[in-house]
């Protein structure tokens, strides 16, 4: 039998020329015997494989044709068109940059939004006690009809007063509300802002308890203490926030139910004593008894007046809220719309916040991306290793 002449007799590593000769021979370029032998070898190897089953080939061809028909339905988008249409969504560097900036700006706007004062706090010092027990206790304690409406109305006002900022007044409790708010204005506008605060208090049914305005060269500050109906506290604070930018705002709530109950009890006791004295007076028969009872009635009237006054004072505390307003003169504060300085200041703040947001996002996303990349790389390496191991099996 004829021995097939194989080219490339050298057993050393492949030479560039050897590979080039092989490529040329397999591409049909070489005309030498060596090239012919390579082509014969390829033909022999290729001829060893049995042909594809015609039925399988037909089925596969049909499946491929069917895939093609399904992927390009009449009037529908072709993959090319959809790719073109969605091309702008591909994560190219400009797209990523635009998305990052948009994300950062949105975050900055949300963080620096003016509707969220920086120092907004709510304090509450409510004391716990039984609501139903108090209601039962107060009911029979109020004797004279004239005292009940005052106390009842005050308690109702305090109980129903809405409290902004999340401090919820418990029904049936007597609570004293308070708030403090700091507004910023340019020094030249401190006086005017203070005046507007005073007018606002009056229009809400309150009054200015005290006011102190100090305006100097380039500085200014006003301190006002307002007394407002508790029911209007929330609206008044909102209105104050519209007068000037709010730098700080806090609200407080103090439960004075016990104080109120004590005052009401004293009034009830004094009233009961008066009833008893009047009854005894009607039964008295001697001058001495009558004089003594009248003396005690006189003292009792004084006690009733004191108790009623104390109760009214407590009720007054519950029905009115004390608001401390501070107007700070700030040369950078812009209470009259956008100025160049304010715009630059805000732009700088937005940039700082943007950088912070980007830094935080990068701190989170970069390790995650690296971890994901490492996992994907490890998975690919493992798959490849698993496949290559099959080739080394004995």
């Amino acid at each position, binding site marked *: 039998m004829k021995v097939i002449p*194989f080219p490339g007799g050298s057993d050393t590593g*492949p030479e560039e020329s050897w590979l080039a000769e092989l490529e040329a021979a397999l591409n049909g370029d070489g005309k030498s015997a060596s090239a012919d032998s390579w082509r014969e*070898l390829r*033909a022999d190897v*290729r001829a*060893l*494989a049995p042909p594809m089953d015609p039925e399988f080939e037909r089925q596969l061809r049909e499946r491929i044709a069917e895939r*093609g028909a399904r992927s390009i339905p009449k009037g529908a988008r072709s993959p090319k068109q959809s790719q073109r249409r969605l091309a702008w969504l591909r994560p190219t560097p400009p797209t990523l940059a635009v998305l990052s900036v948009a994300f950062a700006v949105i975050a900055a706007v949300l963080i620096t939004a003016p509707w969220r004062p920086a120092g907004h706090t709510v304090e509450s010092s409510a004391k716990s006690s039984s609501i139903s027990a108090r209601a039962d206790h107060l009911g029979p304690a109020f004797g004279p009809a004239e005292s009940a409406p005052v106390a009842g109305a005050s308690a109702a006002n305090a109980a129903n007063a809405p409290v902004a900022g999340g401090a919820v007044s418990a029904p049936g409790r007597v609570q004293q509300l308070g708030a403090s708010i700091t507004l910023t204005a340019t020094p030249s506008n401190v006086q005017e802002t203070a005046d507007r605060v005073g007018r606002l208090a009056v229009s809400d049914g309150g009054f200015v308890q005290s006011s102190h305005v100090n305006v100097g060269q380039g500085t200014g500050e006003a301190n006002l203490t307002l007394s407002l109906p508790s029911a209007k506290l929330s609206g008044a604070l909102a209105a104050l926030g519209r007068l000037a930018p709010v730098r700080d705002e806090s609200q407080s709530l103090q439960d004075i139910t016990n104080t109120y109950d004590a005052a009401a009890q004293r009034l009830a006791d004094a009233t009961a004593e008066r009833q008893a004295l009047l009854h005894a007076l009607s039964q008295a028969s001697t001058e001495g008894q009558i004089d003594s009872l009248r003396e005690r009635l006189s003292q009792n009237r004084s006690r009733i007046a004191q108790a009623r006054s104390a109760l009214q004072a407590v009720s007054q505390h519950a029905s009115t809220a004390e608001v401390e307003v501070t107007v700070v003169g700030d040369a950078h504060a812009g209470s009259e719309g956008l100025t160049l300085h304010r715009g630059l200041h805000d732009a700088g703040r937005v940039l700082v916040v943007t950088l912070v947001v980007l830094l935080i996002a990068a701190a989170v996303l970069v390790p995650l991306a690296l971890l994901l990349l490492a996992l994907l790389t490890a998975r690919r390496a493992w798959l490849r290793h698993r496949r290559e191991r099959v*080739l080394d099996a004995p």
Partner: protein
Amino acid sequence: MSALVPSSDEHASQAITVSRPRRLDDVTFAELFRECGADVHAYAISLLGNSSAAEDVTALAFERLYKSRSRLDHDRGTPRAWLFAIARNAALDELRRRRRQPQGELSADLPGEEDSEATLEHIARRATVRDALAALSLREREVVLLKFHGQLSNSELARALGISESNAGTRLHRALTRLREQCAQLDREEVA
């Protein structure tokens, strides 16, 4: 000799016609199947030695190529090379799954219509090549099969194997040298 199989030169030129389409759309995909389907099947059955497994691998290779056609990077290889890389992975997965060695379905018998033109010498030589191929390790055999069935260039071969081009050249050189030696040895034994 050239009448035994389709002309390799002709085949190579056909491969070149589908090697550089601008985009692997459905028309090109059908064309690719027409021109490469038999080669992929031949590669798979030569490596796996099982016709049903080879059909599975062939179908899977085209399926995967179809699904990943949008990611085809023409600068990194032709669709044919990509197809054979996919087919190789599928074939190795199939081999691993079955946990068995290829079985001898390789045949040196020629199709009936070509029997008239076949000579005894051709039949004997192909039997020698078949036995020599079977004597190679699986790793050597797959390089030869990828090179001859896939008709891949050295760079494409390297990419399909996941190794450098120089390593692929070395591996190809060793495999063909071993094949040549095996053929020579078998010839000597037959002569003796």
